[in-house]
């Protein structure tokens, strides 16, 4: 399998600030890769370097085997880009006219433009509104246009910066199915997406990377990432009834930290060397509480990614 995207110690600095540092990755053709990170972690900077919008400070990057600096023209012809700004169209042109314009700039042969544009409008269920001005479109429709534009010239590699942002649940699901089943599985394209959506990371992506402070912290298949990022055991308690000030109560138990309570459900991390289950049960019963369920929580990607991305707010 040949390489769709390859970077070697790719770095971008703005003055003294480093936005992306020594990122090395290899993404083969036909893979759906998801990049996860907090705002300002370096996701968009990385995508912009790979799509020739930004010049790397040092390191190397190849897209479709073309050097992003030396062969920028060939790189641009090989990629489609979905921007996080869904308004990046001409508001006073219709959806159809916008797509026809960008198809021409993407060198789609003139005789194929109409067919290709109609095909994409149907694929994204925009055909009924195709002749309305873009400025009348809803956020979801605009984002669909954004994805449709990236596919106009049938590029082998797609970069998507938060592609399902602003879409309703059904539309987002439809786009995910389209990406996974049509674009990657059937057409064999490579997809590089950034997202804040854990479902997309866990169930959509073949491999994922987590970037924080410009550095790639975790990289691999979602399951491998789970195994790779071992943490202190996470426990979950489900009480029969919500208990007043349960957080304060449990903080007294030795070895418990990182408490999170929501209604009758409590999650916490435990230092196994000093944590005692008996002590926990005693404290809860003494306060009049009843435990319905107790055991290790399914850590999933949430906690792992939060750790890797160094951001409590993120997931």
């Amino acid at each position: 399998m040949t390489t769709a995207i390859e970077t070697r110690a790719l770095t971008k600095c703005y003055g003294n600030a480093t936005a992306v540092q020594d990122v090395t990755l290899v993404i083969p053709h036909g893979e759906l890769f998801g990049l996860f990170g907090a705002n300002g972690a370096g996701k968009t900077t990385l995508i912009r370097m790979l799509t020739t919008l930004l010049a790397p400070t040092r390191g190397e990057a190849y897209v479709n085997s073309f050097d992003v600096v030396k062969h920028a023209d060939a790189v641009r012809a090989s990629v489609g880009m979905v921007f996080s700004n869904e308004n990046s169209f001409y508001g006073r042109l219709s959806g159809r006219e916008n797509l026809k314009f960008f198809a021409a700039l993407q060198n789609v042969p003139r005789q194929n433009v109409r067919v290709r544009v109609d095909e994409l409008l149907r694929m994204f269920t925009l055909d009924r509104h195709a002749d309305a001005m873009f400025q009348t479109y809803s956020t979801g429709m605009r984002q669909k246009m954004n994805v449709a534009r990236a596919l106009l010239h049938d590029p082998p590699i797609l970069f998507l910066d938060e592609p399902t942002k602003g879409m309703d649940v059904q539309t987002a699901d439809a786009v995910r199915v389209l990406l996974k089943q049509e674009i990657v599985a059937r057409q064999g394209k490579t997809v590089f997406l950034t997202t804040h959506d854990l479902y997309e990371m866990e169930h959509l992506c073949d491999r994922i990377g987590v970037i924080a402070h410009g550095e790639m912290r975790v990289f691999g298949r979602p399951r491998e990432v789970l195994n790779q990022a071992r943490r202190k055991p996470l426990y979950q308690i489900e009480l029969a009834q919500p208990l007043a000030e349960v957080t304060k109560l449990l903080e007294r138990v030795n070895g418990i930290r990182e408490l999170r309570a929501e209604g009758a459900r409590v999650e916490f991390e435990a230092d196994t060397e000093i944590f005692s289950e008996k002590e926990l049960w005693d404290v809860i019963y003494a306060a009049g509480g009843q435990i319905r369920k107790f055991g290790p929580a399914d850590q999933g990607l949430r906690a792992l990614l939060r750790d890797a991305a160094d951001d409590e707010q993120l997931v």
Partner: protein
Amino acid sequence: MWALIRRGFLIAKSYRLNFVGTYFGGALYIFFYALLANFVGQQPAAIREFGGYFTFLLIGGVFARYLSLGMKFLAREIEQEMVIGTVEPLMVTATNPALALLGASAWLFVEGIFVLFLQLGVGVIFFGADLSRANWLAALVIIILALLALNSWGILSAAFLLIFKRADPLNWLIDLTTYIFCGVYFPIALLPWFLQIFSYLLPLTYALEGLRGALMRGQSLYDLRAPLFALLIFDLVLIPLALIAFRRALAYTKRTGSLGQY
């Protein structure tokens, strides 16, 4: 390029009063020139003999407007793309980034030709402008050389915009030079000698001098060798300068990540 022209036309068409304003407004200018010519009493023999002050004004006003389109609008149209957020989508297409950006104003040049012919037509048909001796081939050569020089200035302005995000600091200069120093409304010989120095540093001065020679007096390319030579010098200096500046400005935006900022 066709796609860029078509897009400009479709956007212009989407504004209902746009064409009325552009074409009616363009024709109204000619009425203004006719009024002005009527109020001006004594005219130098060189003007009176070859079509009069109205023809002088018509050629000056109409061509100054067309030739300076690039100076005024190349940067402004890129600024518009920055504001609506289409610069980056344009820059990741298979089309050369410089063409995608500078082509944003392509429609204005096409529409400018329509307006130019409308204005000349109105001037000739309704106000008796005398273009009977015109040497159109010589005029065309002057127009091409002048467009190259003046659009290079426009490209410099666009490069300035890409780096500093505002093209305005150069715009005041464009308007000032166009209407005062270049001889749009009066022969530059009427300016004090120290201001005439500025006039001869501007390509539009030579363009209007050449166009008036070609269209009012029917002068040949040989007769017009002085303004043609001056325009050629401007081209030789400004074209490479503009292209290098624009390329460097684009490289700067890629280095600093400021392409989408405005």
